[in-house]
């Protein structure tokens, strides 16, 4: 199992009222204080160095634009620094938003990071959140076309010796011969993060890339694994843990109370319905960006402004359909701002008050090392991911609490997680090549995940 660390790197002084009123995207940059920014960037880089010392296999970065939600507006800058100041950890980018810019520049940047780091880059691609399309004026109606074409171009730029001429549908280069090319051959691994868009899972299955679900509800995640599984079977291979990754929010402290106190901040950093503060619906769902199924859900939601949304999709555990997987994504991102005006106090209460729901659904696992280990086991047994990324420290959590949390996790939780990885045979994409398992003769493909462990937990721990 590949065990990595991730944080959004929030600008933790974001003005809460303003964010609740307008969203993280849309909070003006006049609130950005470069002196505080300086401190935070250094803190987040130091944290990655600490992660290496603590024994993580990888450190993961992401990027978002025009938002205090994440300070990594251009994560390749951070990755470049990490390439130099770390020695062993994989530098996992989840991911570069392909539709936002020229793919040749990206091929060059990533190749440099791979070469400087001595071949430690894990590349990853995203379509970019809806709001990103506004921030960089990338036409959302061509989002998936840009994504597909940019991906194919980058792989070609990394593997086919130049110079050559490229005339595509959206991108054109008259002279392609990037120096350098990546150190890893034929190219770095590519891991694809997502919020359960079935289209992306199908694409990953076709490319044999690991798909990483970002702290999504367990039920639709298992469903998505199966969508991937079925496509893989059509293509003639059996999926394994190496095809899947999962990001889990975990907070540990010396006492349950202290852990919950810290975890509560995450409610403002993306856990539960706090995630719907990411951006207002018009920015989350730009035209042409959404799949047909997601659009249908959006249509139902937004054509009746008086209709109340359920507070937590998948509250009830059970079988899910592909339509429901899409619906969950939409619901998760559109809890607030259905009405014209937002009551700040009420919304704040709703966000923070949702912590018990989020703990119950394992949106966050928090507690003492002893109490979180069995819960992590349930997640690992349910999803069987070959990549497991601990997601921490979002929202306004202090540096001291962040470090304490990380150290405790490394000392008292990680050894147990590694043991589980071995026991459950959760092979990472470095231990087993994704897409190389043969399909059982004439049989149905086997599932990697199963809801049974999760259901058993729920039964034993009624909410």
């Amino acid at each position, binding site marked *: 199992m590949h065990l990595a660390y991730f944080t959004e790197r929030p600008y933790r002084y974001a003005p809460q009222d303003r964010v609740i009123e307008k969203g993280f995207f849309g909070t003006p940059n006049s609130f950005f204080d470069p002196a505080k920014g300086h401190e935070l960037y250094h803190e987040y880089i130091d944290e990655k160095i600490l992660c290496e010392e603590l024994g993580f296999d990888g450190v993961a970065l992401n990027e978002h634009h025009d938002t205090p939600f994440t300070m990594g507006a251009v994560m390749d800058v951070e990755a470049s620094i990490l390439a130099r100041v770390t020695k062993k950890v994989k530098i996992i980018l989840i991911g570069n938003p392909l539709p936002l810019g020229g793919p040749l520049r990206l091929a060059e940047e990533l190749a440099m990071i791979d070469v400087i780091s001595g071949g430690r880059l894990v590349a990853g691609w995203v379509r970019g959140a809806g709001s990103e399309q*506004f921030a960089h*004026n990338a*036409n*959302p*109606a*061509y989002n998936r076309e840009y994504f597909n074409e940019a991906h194919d171009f980058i792989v070609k730029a990394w593997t086919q010796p130049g110079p050559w001429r490229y005339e595509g549908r959206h991108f054109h280069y008259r002279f392609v011969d990037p120096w350098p090319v990546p150190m890893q051959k034929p190219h770095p691994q590519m891991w694809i993060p997502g919020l359960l868009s079935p289209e992306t899972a199908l694409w990953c299955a076709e490319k044999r890339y690991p798909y990483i679900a970002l702290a999504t509800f367990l039920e639709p995640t298992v469903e998505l694994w199966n969508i991937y599984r079925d496509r893989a079977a059509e293509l003639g291979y059996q999926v394994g843990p190496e095809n899947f990754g999962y990001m889990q929010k975990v907070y540990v402290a010396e006492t349950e109370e202290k852990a919950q106190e810290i975890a509560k901040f995450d409610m403002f950093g993306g856990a539960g319905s706090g995630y719907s503060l990411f951006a207002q*619906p*018009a*920015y989350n*769902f*730009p*035209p*042409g960006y*959404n799949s047909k199924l997601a*659009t*249908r859900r*959006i*249509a*139902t939601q*937004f*054509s*009746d*402004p008086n209709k109340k949304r359920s507070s937590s999709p998948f509250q009830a555990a059970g079988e899910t359909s592909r339509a429901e997987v899409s619906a969950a994504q939409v619901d998760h991102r559109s809890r607030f701002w259905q009405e014209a005006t937002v009551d700040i106090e009420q919304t704040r209460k709703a966000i923070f008050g949702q912590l018990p729901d989020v703990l119950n659904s394992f949106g966050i696992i928090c507690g003492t090392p002893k109490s979180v280990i069995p819960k992590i086991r349930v997640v690992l047994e349910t999803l069987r991911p070959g990549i497991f990324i601990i997601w921490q420290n979002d929202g306004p959590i202090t540096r001291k609490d962040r470090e304490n949390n990380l150290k405790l996790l490394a000392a008292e939780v990680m050894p147990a997680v590694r043991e589980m990885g071995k026991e459950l045979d959760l092979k990472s994409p470095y231990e087993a090549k994704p897409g190389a398992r043969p399909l059982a003769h004439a049989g149905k493909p086997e599932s990697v995940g199963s809801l049974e462990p999760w259901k058993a937990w729920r039964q034993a721990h009624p909410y």
Partner: protein
Amino acid sequence: MAEKAQWHQETVNLDGAELQVIKGGAGRPLLVLHEEMGHPGWLKWHTELAREHSLIIPLHPGFGVSPRIDWIWNVRDLAGFYARFLRQQKLNPIDVIGFSLGGWVAAEMAANNQEQFRRMVLVGAAGVRPPQGEILDIFQLMAPAELAASVLDPENTPEFDQLYGGIGPAAFELWEEARAATARLAWVPYMHNPSLPHLLRVIDSLPTLLVWGREDRVVPLSAGEAYQQAIAGSRLVVLDQCGHRPEIEQNAAFVREVKGFLS
């Protein structure tokens, strides 16, 4: 429904695309180019103009009903597509009326070849960057908010509730198709072609009527004035107490002006 008898939908095969066309009325043909949210349905003004004209309303490719055509990258391409449509259907020269995005399409067609039109009416047309104010960024609004912004007073505008068959999931899904198609055509430069005011100056013999709501919040009136300056001999009619949909907000004045101009 009694209204339904006034129009029917036909399929026209053009260049491998099955263009859907709404037709209704009798008289000299009038090409109607619809706006960025799609064809809003058959309204009172359609009925009134259909008494003297046979209305031909192509549903733009990719806007949810007619299939998308991959080579149409921008409004000029769409204008070229409709030039072929007119030739194939032996309709030119024809009278044309275009609304908002549809007005822009008509203007591009006229700039390319004024002889395909007999008379041209542009209503709150996009396509020219307004010297004062900005074209409303519809993409920063959800569709129902875009719709509400298109009239001065949604509560008291006749037929507002009938547009697109009324707000509901079915209309919403079509709007999303239309808005995506609009994004493909006009995401950047947003809803205008910087060359268009210059290209329009080739027009020297096309009678043109420009109709604008004084309080148009989607395409500000200054864009209408810019059109008026660019198109030789054009006349700008500005309607008071009116937003982006003069055809329903000031129906009587609108019908009177358009009928008078086309007769």
